[in-house]
């Protein structure tokens, strides 16, 4: 990498025709003017806050006023804090369940939506629709359904635990969050699976059909292995997104009952009002490191894909 970076520009300077070389030097300024404003704004609004946050995680700052550096104190405390452990436990469990549910359903829907069906375009559009609705607003709608309609149905049918609101039960509230998050997240996973299935050449299926492979067999031996890459992409992107869960949870339970459904993101934001600013910045930094690991996995996977 270092060698290419060092040799390439020189090679370009040497190569071009006289006219082009002249033009190129003059053009350069415009290209810089096109890029630099974005870079400056980006640095101020993204990179700088990130660096500030990470720096403050090594202090005892409460968000304003004076502070002093305390080294890794916050980090040490983090690892023995049951509230932090609970929020990570909840978030990871929730993300895992949601990612599985979303991918199973999205894959089945994608199979259906790429088969010979009527009104294909309309049906695809319908299943993508949830993607475009505000997460907080749809969470409020579901909040009402979970706390009013579902208990009513449960009482009418004598369904035991469903006779009470799911959202008021510390052990069951997470189910509501999974359902609503999945409702919102299935569309984008679905589209990726549709793209994956459509990228399989039809000839492969023809050959299989000629060899007498059953539909199930074709699904297992052709479709699944050939979309495996897309499955991995969906798993990683989904897991990364669900770890950041915030809007849906705020709209459904606001972290409750108690702190039963408090995600990591909500815990971090609590540092803004709770006085433990630096402490939550340390939490955010740990969270960042986890995200970097996931990003590295994702990069590896997507790099493999583009060879296709």
């Amino acid at each position, binding site marked *: 990498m270092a060698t290419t970076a060092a040799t390439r520009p020189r090679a370009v300077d040497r190569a071009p025709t006289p006219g082009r070389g002249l033009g190129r030097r003059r053009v350069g300024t415009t290209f810089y003017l096109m890029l630099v404003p974005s870079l400056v704004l980006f640095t101020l609004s993204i990179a700088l806050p990130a660096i500030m946050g990470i720096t403050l995680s090594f202090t005892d700052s409460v968000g304003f006023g004076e502070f002093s550096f305390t080294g890794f104190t916050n980090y040490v405390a983090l690892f023995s804090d049951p509230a932090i452990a609970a929020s990570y436990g909840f978030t990871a469990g929730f993300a895992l369940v949601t990612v599985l549910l979303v991918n199973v359903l999205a894959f089945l829907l994608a199979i259906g939506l790429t088969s010979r069906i009527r009104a294909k375009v309309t049906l695809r559009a319908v299943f993508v629709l949830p993607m475009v609705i505000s997460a907080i607003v749809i969470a409020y709608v579901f909040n009402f359904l979970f706390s009013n309609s579902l208990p009513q149905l449960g009482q009418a049918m004598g369904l035991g635990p469903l006779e009470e609101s799911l959202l008021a039960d510390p052990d069951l509230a997470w189910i509501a969050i999974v359902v609503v998050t999945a409702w919102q997240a299935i569309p984008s996973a679905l589209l990726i699976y549709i793209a994956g299935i459509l990228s399989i050449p039809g000839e492969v299926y023809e050959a299989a059909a000629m060899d007498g492979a059953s539909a199930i067999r074709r699904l297992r031996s052709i479709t699944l292995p050939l979309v495996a890459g897309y499955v991995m*992409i969906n798993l990683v992107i989904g897991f990364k997104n669900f770890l950041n869960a915030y809007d849906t949870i705020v709209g459904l339970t606001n972290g409750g009952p108690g702190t039963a459904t408090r995600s990591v993101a909500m815990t971090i934001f609590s540092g803004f009002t709770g006085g433990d600013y630096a402490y939550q910045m340390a939490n955010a930094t740990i969270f960042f490191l986890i995200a970097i690991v996931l990003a590295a996995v994702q990069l590896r996977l997507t790099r493999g894909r583009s060879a296709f």
Partner: protein
Amino acid sequence: MTQQSLLTTGPGQVPVRRRRRFRASGGQDRPRWQTTVLLVLCSTAVFLPLYATVVMAFKTAEQSVDGQVFALPSPVSLDGFVEAWRLTNFPRGFAISVFVTVVTVVGTVVLAALAAYAIARNWDRRFFRWSFFYLLAAMFLPFPVLALSQVKLTGMVGLDNPLGVAILHVMFQLSFSVLLFTAFIRGLPEELEESARLDGASTWQVFRRIVFPMMAPMSATVAIFAFLASWNDFMMPSLITADSTMQTLPVLQSVFQTQFSSNYNVAFASYLMAMAPAIVVYLFTQRWVMAGVTQGAIK
């Protein structure tokens, strides 16, 4: 291949092509009715909450509390909308949402297109190549890591308002948008640009007259994603905007959770008014939405 097939999933042209392909592939080309029926049944899962929202919004206050959520409104009442309009100060919230979204969409398309063009045409230079990876890095930054510092910084420079929210939306959309634009520009033939340059056009003219118009399909995708992200966002405005009278529509919905928790018809009328614009835009632009998701995922 994948991108093309999805780009053409829009209404119109495609069904014809698809049907033809099936015929060519031999075998049964009759549509599968069982699958179709099954999928239609599944689609009720999408429609049920939306149906509930619409019927609740048109009920009277008395009918909305009787617990029969899915019952049709009788009589049909517009009181919910009138109340919601007043309680959330809808025109102001709507105007602020529109302002934030328009600034976000225009800002994203312009900044990302310019940056992507500069990067794609100077890929052999280290500065531009590294800038690309620098911008891309934000895709992997979880928002909570930056949020608290962003709140402080925007407060310090007086941007704890809708404009600040819009600027941050643009910055968060930049990574994904530059990625899409750069990939698209690499696929454009350079000959046209070169001949324009020989005719004496400056880089800026080449971009404005030739490259930017050619990027229109990708600009549409980028714009729709910026629109959806900005219009529907709750977290950023709720954290950044200090003055509660300057809030966007999604944030305003929270008043029904805290202050007016029993006026269900009013709440649902308000939810409906907040989600309707996104649904309408989606209905008109769904093929770019579909193309965009797949392009973003596969690249």
